[in-house]
Every structure is written in structure tokens, then in C-alpha cells.
């Protein structure tokens, strides 16, 4: 018997919750990081969170000025 859509949807939601990485945590492939930037993002007025970019790929680059 095929699982009903509601079961699939509940299972998907549970998987999503498990995969959600807490802010500042170390991430792995498959994680779904969520984060709100307290001071916003310079250069993209009005964007305050990773979720604001849903629908497009986001490249987060960690760098230093030294």
C-alpha cells in the first residue's frame, strides 16, 4: 500500500526539522540553516535572513580582511 500524502508530508516535515541547523552551529551537507542577521546585510537593503534568498542559490563565503 502506498503511504498517503499526509503521511509523506508529516514525514517530510519531521525530516526537515531534524535537518535544520541551529544558528552558529557547524553545518553539514543536507542541513537547512536558518539565520536572521541582527544588523541586516550591507549591500542588499531589506534582506535580514537566509530565508529572504529562498528561490536562489546562496554562496556564503567566510573570509578575513588580514
Amino acid at each position, binding site marked *: 500500500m502506498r503511504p498517503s*500524502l499526509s503521511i509523506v508530508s508529516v514525514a517530510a516535515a519531521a525530516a526537515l526539522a531534524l535537518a535544520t541547523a541551529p544558528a552558529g552551529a557547524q553545518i553539514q*551537507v543536507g542541513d537547512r*540553516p536558518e539565520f536572521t542577521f541582527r544588523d541586516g546585510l550591507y549591500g*542588499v537593503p*531589506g534582506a535580514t535572513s537566509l530565508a529572504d534568498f529562498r528561490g536562489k542559490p546562496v554562496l556564503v563565503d567566510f*573570509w578575513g*580582511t588580514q
Partner: protein
Amino acid sequence: MPTAVKLQKEYGDAIQVIFVEVQGHSMDEVLPFALKRKWLGSGVAWTTERPFRVDLNGIPNYALISPDGEVVSWGYSNQDHKKVVELIEGFVKSKPQREDLPKPLVKVYKEFDKGEFAKAWKEADKVEAKYAEDAQVLRFLGDARREVRETVERRSQRISWLVENGYPLLAEAQWKDLVKVVKGADELVALVADVTARIDTDEFADMKKAARSLVKMEQALYESGGKDGEKLAKKLRKFAEDHAGTPLAARATQLADIAAKVGSVRA
């Protein structure tokens, strides 16, 4: 760094690059540094707040997040550059994947994914009429409508933020785009009503006029890489004085601060 800036310029609004400074410097140091290298104004986002960590010691390192919010790759930026470009290219070319979507909702999401919210809403109306007795379809339809509503609300809130923080030209452009795609769906039009009321005022028209000269100064600053920074800083401070107490003044002051500091940035 320069390669990621180049990627942002090449793909424009189809991707988002976020640079996170992780060596403990403040934005007051980061922005003049980036200005001097002509990296500002490229569409890249700048921050010192680290949204998450990757299991690496050296920098630059990165994480690539897919359009639906999942981390698909992480590593050292220079080593993985080719891989990252290939992944981005794949995302930009592909359509959103929606698994387990009931067939009656395919057209709803097709319009939603194109950003055609009113059309998605009307498709939802058709599905609702046709499947009025099908609880399962109606439940999924409720989710779809919520997703459309939340997206319109989020975009509307972002436009309000732009108005409040001195970006009237950007606010108007985004508002026009949004109005176009909600037209014909009354419930969605209502979600934009507040921001429409804020844009349709004399005060907003005045702010737009002033913003045009600020934007010119901002572009000149970015294009010059802060050359003649002191001179530009002086002009920006004068602008801030002339528009004291407005959000435009706050923007001008921030730009003046960046311009003034660029001279002390090492080459």
C-alpha cells in the same frame, strides 16, 4: 574573494553571495576595505555575523545553499571554485523541484514559482471549485495559498523596510513589480495595500527626489573605490545635514563614514 564578486556580477539577481568576515573585524573596517577594492555595489551582501560554521580551519571557506535552503556543498573556496560554479550553473538553469505534489496543484505552483501570484491564486480557485469534496487536495491547496500569501507579505514587508530606511527608489521599483503580479487577486492586493498607501504620498515623492542625488554619490563612491574619499565624505555629510532627521541622512552618514576611512585601509 574577487572570484565570488565576479560570480555575483555575472549571475546578478539569480544568485546571492554573502561575505562573512570571520577575523573579528567590525563593519566599520570591513566596508572601507571592500570599497578600496571596488567590491561594494556589486550586489554582494556583507556581514560580520556568522550564520553557521563549517568544519575547516583555514579561510576563505564557503558553504553553498540550494534554492530550497539545503546545504549542498562546503569546503575551501579556492579549491572548490570550479565545483561551486558548476552547481550554481545547474541551479540557475533548472526549475524548482517539487516532490509529492498532488497533480491538481501542479498549475498552482507553476505560476507561483514564476512569481505570478495572482495567476497562482486563480488556479487555486479553480482547484478549489473542482475538488470541493476532496479533503486531501484541499489541505494541500491550503498550504499552497498560505505559501503565496506569506511570500507576498514578506515582499510587502521588505518594501516597507526600504521606505523606512531611505531606499525609496528601490522600494518603488519592487512595489511596482509586486503590484503587477498580485493584480486581479483581491486578497493579495489587500496585503499590499499598506505599503501602497505609504508610497502614494507627497512625502514619498520628496524622498525619491532627494534619493536620486544620494544614489549618484553612492555610485560615484563605489565606482571610484573611494578615491577622493575625503571629498566625497564632505559632500555626503552636507547631504546628511540638509536632510537631517530623515532615513536618507542616516544612509548618507554611513556612506560618509566609509568614504572617510578608505584612506587608512592598507593596499
